[in-house]
């Protein structure tokens, strides 16, 4: 397997005037956090911590590791809920189409 390509978010804007910039959870121009390895800014601490753990796993300080593990655990929980919703949505989608089709078959 090739080494994972690090693909930095190369275009950084800190200004609020950028189209699509909704301000986020930090003041315009001052990111919540910035990666010390690749200088990328993040709108939230959790995104920063996840980035560190995923892109620079071998260069974490103990504090950063702790932050990553916490963010990862948080996201794991969030993801579980999200996936529950996804499974329900898939089920409904499937059931809905089967039902509609059955109705159709009777109608036509």
């Amino acid at each position, binding site marked *: 397997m090739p080494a994972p*390509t690090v693909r930095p978010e190369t*275009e950084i804007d800190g200004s609020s005037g*950028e189209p699509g910039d909704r301000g986020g959870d930090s003041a315009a121009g001052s990111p919540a956090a910035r990666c010390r390895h690749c200088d990328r800014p993040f709108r939230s601490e959790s995104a920063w911590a996840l980035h560190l753990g995923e892109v620079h796993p071998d260069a974490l300080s103990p504090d950063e590791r702790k932050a990553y593990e916490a963010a990862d655990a948080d996201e794991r929980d969030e993801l579980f809920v999200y996936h529950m919703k996804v499974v329900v949505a898939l089920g409904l989608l499937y059931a809905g189409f089967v039902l509609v089709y059955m109705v159709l078959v009777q109608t*036509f």
Partner: protein
Amino acid sequence: MSDQQEVASGSATDGRTEPTLGGDGGNVSSDSGPGAPAVADASGLAARGATAALDRTSAAAVRPTIGIAVAVAATALAATPAAAHVGSLGAVAGSSAVPLWYVLLAGGAAVGGSFLFTSLLTDHEGVRMVNGWRLPVRLPHSALAGWRRLLGVTGVAVLVAVVLSGLFGPTDPFVSLAVLVVWAGWWAGYTASTYLLGDTWPAANPWRTLAGWGTRVRAGLTGSQPGREPAEPDGGAADAVRVPLVGEIAVDPARWGAWPSVVGLLALVYVEVTTPLAEDPRLLAGVVLAYTVATVVGAVALGPAVWFGSIDPVSRVFRWYGRIAPFGRLGDDVTGDPSDDASEPEPASAGGSGVDPERDSAPGTAGLELRLPGAGLTRLGAPARDETAFVVALLWATTYDGLVSTPAWNDLARPVVSAGVPGLVVYAVLLVGGFGAFLAVYRLAARNARTWADTYVTADYLERWFVPSLVPIAAGYHLAHFSSYFLTLSPALAGVLANPLSPPAPVFVVVPGWFDTIQLLVVLLGHVLAVWVAHAVALDIFPGRLRPVRSQYPLIVVMVVYTTTSLWIVAQPYVAPVGL
């Protein structure tokens, strides 16, 4: 161009006639012989189709065959320009016993559903591993070079044959080598090979071969060395090019980016839609000749690498399609991955040296890789900005081709044309306006993706980052539209190739009815692959697992809308475009 044609009436003419070979169809239908069974068979199918739920598309339920094309031609008795490479998918929606809205809904839901499925796969490493999987196939360099040379010579021979046959051969499109080779052989069959197998166009491209010879001749005349063109690879300096009869002109292809090919692609589609290019061998030969002159002169002046890398639209189409293919050149994606630092990515292909990188690869890199379909698209990084415009143009071209022959468009256009606006203007406005609208919608999606992902990455960058995911959609439609066309015409094509000087009476294959379902599946497969590519590249740019998933929402909405719209378009009965 024929006069304004009314909506073809009568069941047979309602059929979506995929083969464009309608023009002189009248004489073919009188051929008893191999063509006749096809007609008979088709009308049998029509009878069956008439009982289908959708009366409106009853005849569209007929698998489009040459038989149908013949019937259409015999009834409408006029060239149906671009009768179009739109599709046989009318047949899909029509032949199924379910109403159109259900087909559309199911199509959209299949795309949305596949997004839901991919959202369950959130392991960055795992997804990257799947797409990074490659099986190197190392080949002796001499074998590759020989293969390339063979393809190159074959390409030139085919080009010469097409032009000669188009100019001096039969005018009946069904036995015209030019028409059959260009449309069935090349645009249907060969194009499919670029995304199903691999992009061989850099080697097979006859214009590239000619330009290579031309460059050598030019170097011999001027005494300069080929491969030492004065262009700056980083696109810094403008390059003064001496054009015969014109003098020195300053051109800076690197600055144009992909825009020349965007314009070129739209122009080609426009010509294809507004002229009977697929029925008239003489016209076809003229267009091919014009394209040849423009391409060879341009490529010799600017260097083949610049011309075929950034200006020629056809090469760019095949290059994008080739990234879907399971076979690629080993290490090709390295040149296309500009994202290793913060620098603005180069249009990798627009480098200006006279050497032709796609052809003259270093001996060490000789080899192919086997990879998963679409994996090549996930390794690109962010393509240059105007590549976005090109990919969107590719998508829009497919849609435009179909849209102009829908009743809805014709109802819209008829008053305008009656009011005295020339048809050519109306169609040009639609072409440019629709392209602009497609681009705007995609840009809007990218802006929204930025919000959903809660990121500092600019919308502009995301726009480029996600654009490879649109390519499989275009390829899926291409395959769906052209597979039955190709199969139907392949015996005629083979006959004409086996005996170019006196081609046998054309034989057509009647594609079985279940093929409709395959086509529908192919369209959906294209979209599913698109969803997968979008998912993979999203995981590659955003941290965590939820941000990448959420970032795809706007794009998925666009894809669902696009699926539904396109299925609707191809399900419409064929109407000869008004005003042409």
